[in-house]
């Protein structure tokens, strides 16, 4: 974020950023091959064949299959090569590695809230360690926003009601700008953030200094008691409710005979829209918390439920980003 007067190329803070720059330049080069002749020939013809010039105009072609096929097929093959390269890069940027550290992001008009696994919270600033894959697990509290890091050449929309992900592995320490890229109302242009990429030691120091006494899961446990979840789901509960231990990642049989994997989206829906997917063998007595608990609360509760143990069926934490379950593409 140095204040140069004239900057014409963005900083690059990851391998991916360099790969994108390379992609852009090679595509520019290839397109130049197909476009420059158009400009040059148009001008040449316009000069040479002006009315009255003494040049041969015999054997004017009315068209030619061969010529047409040449300018259809060659550019197409050329761009397909670049297409494959870019599809691979897109696959990579959409597929977080399993060992990425996870940071929770909640967007609302007009601010960014970040929360680290250790419970550290920050607003409009994001600290990450250099050289380590980071996965942002993101959701919006209101309208659609989009988190954009130009120096990393990536962005991803944040939707209300659905988790989306963005991952990167920064290779250069420093401070970088982040923007909201999806128009979101009055102060859209004020919805900025700063990405601070630090060495692992600095990052550790920052974590310990930023005064979080409880981890994300521990904060969730507090909410779990505060909102009375334990009254039904706790060990000594009177109401008949399923135990949440070992729920995360397990396959849950539903009332209507179908079943789902209990991933993050499922747990969110269970809290905010409990009647959407009823667990088989239980009554629909759980109240909806959609007006009581915000997205950050849901994320903490989810972390707590996850800390209660993960189920047998699959490893969604590592798995779900690679193979998005159907819930991620459908409402």
């Amino acid at each position, binding site marked *: 974020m140095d204040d140069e007067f004239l*900057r014409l190329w963005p900083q690059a803070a990851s391998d991916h950023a360099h790969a994108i720059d390379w992609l*852009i330049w090679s595509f520019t080069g290839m*397109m130049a091959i197909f476009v420059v002749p158009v400009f040059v020939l148009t001008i040449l013809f316009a000069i040479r064949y002006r009315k009255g010039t003494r040049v041969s105009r015999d054997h*004017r*072609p009315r068209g030619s299959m061969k010529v*047409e096929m040449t300018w259809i097929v060659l550019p197409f093959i050329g761009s397909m090569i670049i297409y494959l390269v870019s599809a691979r890069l897109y696959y990579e940027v959409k597929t977080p590695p399993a060992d990425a550290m996870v940071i929770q992001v909640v967007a609302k008009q007009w601010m960014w809230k970040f929360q680290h696994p250790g419970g550290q919270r920050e607003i409009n600033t994001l600290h990450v360690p250099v050289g380590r894959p980071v996965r942002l697990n993101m959701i919006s509290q209101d309208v659609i926003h989009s988190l954009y890091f130009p120096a990393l050449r990536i962005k991803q929309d944040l939707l209300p009601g659905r988790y989306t992900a963005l991952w990167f592995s920064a290779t250069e320490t420093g401070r970088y700008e982040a923007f909201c*890229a999806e128009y979101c109302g009055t102060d859209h242009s004020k919805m900025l953030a700063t990405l601070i990429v630090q060495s692992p030691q600095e990052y550790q120091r920052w974590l310990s200094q930023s005064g979080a006494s409880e981890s994300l899961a521990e904060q969730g446990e507090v909410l779990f008691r505060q909102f009375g979840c334990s009254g039904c789901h706790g060990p000594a509960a009177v109401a008949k409710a399923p135990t949440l231990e070992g729920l995360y990642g397990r396959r849950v049989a539903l009332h209507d005979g179908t079943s789902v994997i209990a991933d993050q989206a499922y747990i969110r829906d269970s809290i905010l829209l409990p009647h959407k997917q009823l667990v088989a063998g239980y009554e629909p007595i759980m109240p909806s918390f959609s007006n009581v608990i915000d997205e950050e609360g849901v994320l903490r509760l989810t972390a707590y439920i996850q800390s209660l143990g993960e189920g047998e069926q699959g490893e969604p934490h590592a798995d779900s980003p690679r193979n998005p379950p159907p819930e991620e593409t459908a409402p």
Partner: protein
Amino acid sequence: MSQKNPAADRAPSYLADEHGLRTWLLTTDHKRIAILYLISVTAFFFLGSLAASLVRIELVTPEGDLLSPDGYNRAFTLHGVVMVWFFLIPSIPAVFGNFLIPIMIGARDMAFPKLNLFSWYLLVGGGSFTLYALLAGGVATGWTFYTPLSTMFSNGHVVAVILGVFIVGFSSILTGLNIIVTIHRLRAPGMTWFRMPLFCWSLYATSVILVLATPVLAITLLLVAAEHLFGIGVFDPRLGGDPLLFQHLFWFYSHPAVYIMILPAMGVMSELVTAAAHKRIFGYSFVAYSSLAIAVIGFMVWGHHMFVAGQSMYASMVFSLLSFLVAIPSAIKVYNWTATLYKSNLTIDAHFLYALTFIGLFVIGGITGLFLALLAADVHVHDTYFVVAHFHYIMVGAAVAGFFGGLHFWWPKMTGRMYSQLWGKIAAVMIFCGFNLTFFPQFLLGYLGMPRRYHSYPEDFQFLHVLSSTGAAVLAVGYVMPFFYLLWSLRYGPQAEDDPWDAAGLEWRTSSPPPTHNFLETPIVDFDAYEYPPEATHGRS
């Protein structure tokens, strides 16, 4: 058929036939309706430009100091809505399509003359209503109306604006229908499909899109209104809806709609290039079929607007591939126009300069469209000024150059007057230079990371923004100039000959301006389109 229609000289022109405002407002003559459209879209164009000027002036400084944040958001919303729906979509189809298609195919009028007039009233009525709602209600959703911002979180008269756009949509549908039926039913004897000028082919393809895509917009807008008014959950997740569904529906209309805006200009281009070259187009059937190909493939690429919206990764890969396919027919056209100049007898008039402007700007706009279709690259430049530059190169640079080129080319036919070539050429050059100065810096801005729809921005973007605003001033002068010298020509311009450009085509075989029924005797067509003499070094044989 090389002689002019002799009867045409004896009949009064469509302009002189009847007098008085009433005869204009109740006319069913396609030529008069075209003039009505010309006046109204010009008015909308100036209105939209006014809003754009506000935006560009605001962006001269990094701070948001001229307008309030909401004022800025309203300005670009007004600009987008007016330019897309009230200027660009009706511009060439409703003005030149109306004026020329019946003449080009040797018909007396459009198939449904009253419907034709009715669609003009829909445009003007719906347009004025929307404008009122935009100005009075302060709608700040952007022209895209993304939910849930537009349904749950925006103040203002969103529903009224949507209703206005909905009404104008019907104007588009009816115009499209009229053109399709006219081309099918009213071609003169001997005017086979492959003897039609390419302008007719491209407007036919455009009309197919108008008729098939616009209803989807209408349904989508109705759903937004229903959610807004009655709280029926369609798009809002809190009501059990899906916000991405809106984007899918919107782009299912709006990507084809971008071709509604450019295909007609491509049709104009084929006329301008051949007339300037005094030579048949190279590869007629490739240019003709490419219009249809664009219309068909254009319906299958909408997902390229949603690469980072949360759409499935594999869907994105398919949409990207299809977007490369849709570029092929556009490329075919450009290559064929270039090849048409080979061994031509070129005259360089103002309208040819507009044609060159079109080629230059369309090629850059099209190529950058491919950059955007390139998945991983789009993840970076989506929703930045790069996208803004891309679509302005095509929609403003190229499409408006097509519109102006057509205006300069057919002005003598429409009005019977010649304008000053010198001023025409100066304006064309200013538009070309001003345009590039305005929008080229925006590619750099976008790649640097400047998001679109920003009222204020970090300081290091300022230099490029100032360049862009400077260019906009030059561009504005270029756009205003024709307004003056064309109006001037109405009074002081010399009388136009029937065929001032030595061009082929039925429209040049009737008088300038044409009589009310275009041809007193239905022409018999026994010649191909663009029938120029094989070695036309000395006028027409």
